[in-house]
């Protein structure tokens, strides 16, 4: 019987041994640090601010937003067989959660959350004060960038400027309140940002970028005088800090990135020299590339999901340069079927493109004979030529037309265009400036906001024959669906309206 007792004792011992592991219930995640243990050092602060930049670079924002701005303007349209996509430019959004709308909204707010993390945590870090000030100002700049886009795409959006409990429904702002955040963020950013960077920091937000962006935000609200004040600050930095590049085309290639004309760029690189294939998005090193060239590139090398309108071509063809040749900016902006035109080295016919096919050349790698998902071309968000033209507009609207015209001429001179007479009337110059902005900035996501600001966006832009395609008509016939008071803004995603449960008002008309 002793053996049985021994077994019994053994069993009890065994049973309790395996049942009594200490700390069994205190399992700490072995996979990653928590926010409580992060945000301790200067290095953490830098990692944190870099993450905010990664937000504005994310393809779901940096790529899709181009469609939301440029296809909706009279510069562009889409022949995509994906009806929802083509519909964006037609001002017909049936699925409010269409990814290229919803994801832009989502990524803007994700970036804002990242910026808010920096703004709430970095002040408590013991670190070099200069760097700390800069990082906080960078976070403000990037948040301002996001709210500028929210203000122009959706208008009345939730105001998130702090981090609250996960279940918080942040209040919807009025348009004025949203603009106020934009202005304040850029003002704070301008105060804390350096004029320029060296070495490994080149590409971060600068004081000039913040001032220029603030001016753009003020101009969009038609606060002409305040806008002009900001633009003047930039102009005072010419030529030491800023100047026009000698050639227009140098603003849209991988060469001459972060150049003297540029106030802020979204940075990309194809440091792996990859071509073809799909990128893998959560790759730590491989996919900091821009897919813009692939999505807009010529069929069948690219998807041609968006194309320039015939109206845009007409704008270029309406004014010859000093030598009677076509505006040199046309070639670097878009293609059209005419003798000598080559699409990545082949003729229109060889590429199988039709006579009414026009393709974006700006921001593509048109000098190659192929296109791919891996383009390193930075997206220029603001450049000096834009500042000059915006300043000219502000001055003109203030009735200071003679002072305004020389700024437009600075831009025209570079492209060998005739100088404008200083005797133009306010209205004459206003119309001329609208044209000048189109030919200089087409495809740079400013036109739609310009149209809204000018008050010209309306169904009449569709022209006399709205049945034609924008590739055939002299007008962007897609504007036939444009409803004043509605189509200026996109519908807020249904997903968001649902999540707010009545506390978020849809944009008018949607």
């Amino acid at each position, binding site marked *: 019987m002793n053996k049985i007792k021994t*077994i019994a004792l*053994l069993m009890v011992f065994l049973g309790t041994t395996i049942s009594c592991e200490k700390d069994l219930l205190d399992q700490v995640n072995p996979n990653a640090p928590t926010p409580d243990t992060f945000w301790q050092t200067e290095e*953490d602060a830098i990692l944190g601010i870099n993450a905010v930049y990664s937000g504005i670079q994310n393809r779901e924002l940096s790529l899709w937003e181009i469609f939301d701005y440029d296809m909706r303007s009279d510069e562009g349209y889409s022949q995509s067989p994906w009806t929802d996509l083509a519909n964006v430019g037609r001002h017909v959004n049936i699925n409010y959660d269409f990814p290229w709308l919803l994801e832009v909204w989502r990524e803007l707010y994700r970036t804002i959350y990242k910026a808010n993390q920096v703004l709430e945590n970095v002040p408590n870090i013991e670190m070099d004060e200069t760097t700390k000030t800069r990082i906080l100002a960078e976070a403000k700049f990037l948040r301002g960038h996001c709210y500028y886009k929210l203000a122009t795409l959706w208008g009345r959006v939730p105001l998130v400027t702090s981090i609250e409990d*996960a279940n918080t429904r942040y209040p919807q702002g009025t348009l004025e309140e949203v603009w106020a955040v934009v202005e304040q963020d850029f003002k704070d950013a301008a105060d804390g940002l350096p004029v320029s960077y060296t070495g490994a920091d080149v590409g971060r937000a600068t004081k000039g970028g913040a001032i220029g962006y603030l001016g753009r935000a003020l101009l969009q609200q038609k606060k002409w005088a305040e806008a002009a004040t900001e633009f003047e600050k930039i102009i005072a930095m010419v030529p030491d800090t800023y100047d026009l590049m000698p050639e227009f085309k140098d603003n849209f290639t991988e060469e001459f990135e972060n150049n003297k004309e540029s106030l802020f760029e979204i940075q990309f690189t194809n440091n792996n020299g990859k071509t073809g294939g799909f990128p*893998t998005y959560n790759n730590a090193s491989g996919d900091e590339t821009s897919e813009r060239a692939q999505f807009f590139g010529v069929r069948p090398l690219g998807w041609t999901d968006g194309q320039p309108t015939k109206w845009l071509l007409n704008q270029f063809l309406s004014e010859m340069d000093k030598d009677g040749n076509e505006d040199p900016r046309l070639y670097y902006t878009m293609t059209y079927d005419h003798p000598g035109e080559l699409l990545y080295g082949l003729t229109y016919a060889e590429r199988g493109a039709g006579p009414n096919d026009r393709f974006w050349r700006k921001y593509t790698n048109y000098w190659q004979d192929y296109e791919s998902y891996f383009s390193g071309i930075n997206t220029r968000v603001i450049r000096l030529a834009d500042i000059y033209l915006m300043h000219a507009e502000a001055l003109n609207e203030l009735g200071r037309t003679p002072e305004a015209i020389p700024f437009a001429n600075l831009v025209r001179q570079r492209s060998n265009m005739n100088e404008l007479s200083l005797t133009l009337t306010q209205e004459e110059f206003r119309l001329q400036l609208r044209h000048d902005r189109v030919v200089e900035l087409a495809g740079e996501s400013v036109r739609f906001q310009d149209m809204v600001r000018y008050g010209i966006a309306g169904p009449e832009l569709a022209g006399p024959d709205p049945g034609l395609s924008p590739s055939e008509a002299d007008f962007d016939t897609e504007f036939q669906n444009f409803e004043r008071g509605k189509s200026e803004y996109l519908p807020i995603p249904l997903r968001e309206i649902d999540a707010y449960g009545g506390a978020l008002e849809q944009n008018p008309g949607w």
Partner: protein
Amino acid sequence: MKKHLTKLCGRAILALSFLCAFIYQGNAQDQQTVSGSVKDANGIPLPGASIVISGTQIGTITDAEGNYRLANVPTDGRLAISYVGYEEKVIDVENNSILDIILIEDTDLLDEIVVIGYQTVKRSDIVGAVSVVDTEEMLKAPASNVGTMLQGRASGVTVTSTGSPGSTPSVKIRGINSFSGQDSPLYIVDGMFISTLGADFNPNDIKSIQVLKDAAATALYGSRGMNGVIIVTTKRGRSGPLKVDYDFYYGFQDIAKKLPLTNAEQFIEINNLAYTNNGDEPQGLRTGVDTDWQDELFQTGRITEHNLNFSGGSMNSNYFISLNYFDQKGAIIGPEFERYQIRVNSETRKGKFTFGENIAFSRSNQTRVNGNPFIDVVWMLPTIPVYDPNNESGYGYGDDNNSTFATNPIGLQEHYSNTAVTSKLLGSVYGEFQLLPFLKYKLNLGVDYAQIREKYYQRAGALRQNTPGAAFLDDRNTEFFNILAENTLTYKQEFGKHSISVLAGFTTQKDNYNYLFAHVEGLNGEFWVQNNGTASPRTEGREETAGLRSILASFNYSYDDRYTFLVNFRRDGSSKFGKDNRYANFPSLSASWRISEERFMEGVKLFSNLKIRGSWGTVGNQAIDNYATQSVLNYNQNYVLNNQVNLGATNLQLVNPNLRWESKTTTNIGLDAGFFDDKLNISADYYVADVKDLLLAVPIPLSSGNTGGDPLANVGQVQNRGLELSLDYQNNIGDFRYGISTNGTFLKNEVKALVEEAGNLPIFGTGQILRTAVGEPVASFYVLETAGIFQNQAEIDAWGVQPNARPGDVKYVDNDGNGIINFDDRAVVGKALPDFEYGLNLNFSYKGFDATAFFQGVTGNSIFNEQKWWSQRYDDNANYLVDDVYWTGEGTSNEIPKPIHLDASLNPTQNSDRYVEKGDYFRLKNLQIGYAFPMELISKVSLSKLRLYLTGQNLFTITSYTGYDPEVVGTNGNGDFLNRGFDNGNFPSLRSVIMGIQIGL
């Protein structure tokens, strides 16, 4: 600790071997040797029947001929003769030296011993709501997994399965109880807790299945009992000489239904019209190609299984060894499943000590379905060839003149590869020690180890328009290692008419999980290994550990077999929750009254059994991921500066640190009645189950900046009410035996609260179509309502709310009456869960012949048919149905609109009731006819059993659903509330014809 364990186990086994050598010695008395035979009522010998001297553990068993010989039997003693499945007999020896015994078969189900909550009880003593599955009938319907076999076999259990080889079906008990996605029952296989019982488990090993449904039955499983518990016990050897059983079957399987899709000629006509209707030139479709994508994809699958068992035992030990091979080739090109399993179950007793183990090792190879082929066959155009040598991949797909964004479904299976190899060890080792005649200690050690090796690769080249593909390879190695240690003490004693049993236990479980993932591109040739990659290598890995520590107690008091009271209690502590919410208590109370045992019922002949039961209790669900209360930093949030990649880090996903357990309180009343000497048994249960603190991934606004899944919060409340009925009748007229057993489940499900702070916003599932809202059943279809097709402009003008519509457009109902049609006009038009589910089993046998027919069905649910959405949207190219009469002019159709390609209005594309169909069905799930050769014949070739059978599965289905199969799980295969009833290419159930043979030695 692991080292400890091995060492201790080693010692325990050593000690056990010593014990076995220990010899008992009897006392000298008046003794004699008794011999004789044990037979059944028909005179057939019963080998392995046990003969024990009453009051001792001395005894023997009968040999292969049913004879026994037992020495040293006291002349005034008594012998107890028993045999599994027969009524025990006790007889006085009275100086007889030869005793021939006849045992009577025990057909009374109420005497069956069943396993519930750490104990075994007689079926008549069950107090809670427990379904005992007739596993013998269940196993007649061959399938790769237990879940599929369970369908329709137990009331309160909802099973939805697909025809995809090796897939695990969705099993829900008493409705959808949780929003967490973890709403499947807990399985307990021979004492080990596991969360799913998939195709890597051999169902033929199953001896019994009990489904525990109410809180009285599940409270002892505490924090994991909320979704119900399925207790599976595997077979054991019975005492007697070696018994060998071999079962084999082979069968063919196919997809019963083919959608009537247009051929190339018909397609071109409609497609050209759709282009013309939009004012465009037809796209110039290819001629000379006419692909029937269904014919190309579908094939005759096959299913085969070999099952070989060795079993036997002596007085004090028994063993059961099974070898299993299962192989299934899919009914579409591509998917396959193969399983090898070996199981060893044995138990040895010596005196007060019992030691045993149940261990199964399996290895399975699965080739999975790639993509969504059942959508692609509809989305693909008949003018596209299956193979196209002009494309890099060699497969045909959409182009500018035959535009479609469908993926070549055959290419998906052939050009891409998706396989998984699973090695699994599941089992338990236990020891029992009878400390005192009424007190027993048990140690149970369980292990569930799985290693899953997944490999996915794509060869280079596109299978879809505008979607180029480079070759890549993904390897993933996942390991689960879950161990359990349970210490329990059981006290059981009777005092006259009072019977008391008490159980106390202390248990610990530790779950480990890890995975390693590797990706590489630039592979050359057909060498699918990481080393062959030349570009973009990437790795991932993760480790997780979870702990659960519990105490449990159960007190059962019974008086005179008439009144029974049961109190259960469990306290669980889980590492998944924050310190403040770590522990929770789960109590239950229940009672039963066996009215039929009352003296006043003696004269009532109607009832052979009558019992009422009542229970109340609370159980929980710890359905959150490990570390879900801890937020983390995410790296790889990188950015380019100066053309160099700079690292970034930030928090992406928001969490709620204060999560608690989900809990469910159930009140259950039940009635069991037996008639005609228990030939007819009926059972009914009614329950109300209130679930609160539901863990819900609350859809927080996108403006919160959250990335990834929405954070969980304890917010929801759901009520499930149900009535479950079962009826079983077995009888015979001479040699003709017949039986009918049926069960039905009525379920009413209502959401009581969601996120109250945020106005109880509904939760939307797949495509914003499935909605879960307060006051509605979980997972309701919420879409626009239609009212036919506009026949002419006058109708459009009269309708008013669609001023831009054209004749031939779909007419939508302006439910909110605001004069426009938008998302606010959506309405609930159906729900994903049925009101009523039922199963009906009929069985007959006459001499060697037997037949079984099993019917199963559901009513009251709806399905969103995505195939129909593709074939009837017209704005985007997809194939059409021949039967569809689309609108071509006034009066031509009031159901299907005018086909307009690239219709910018997206009029027919809207998610509407046009695509929501009734999901009711009634089907012959299984039909089997068998013949067992008579003993006299087969004993000549030394066989004890030879049976042949023919089985048909899903031979017919009655339904109005127009998709492939009304048995739809949902988009993710799990059948959770966000995806349920959404048919986006659900793999249909298979129609099978199977021939089998069963041989016993």
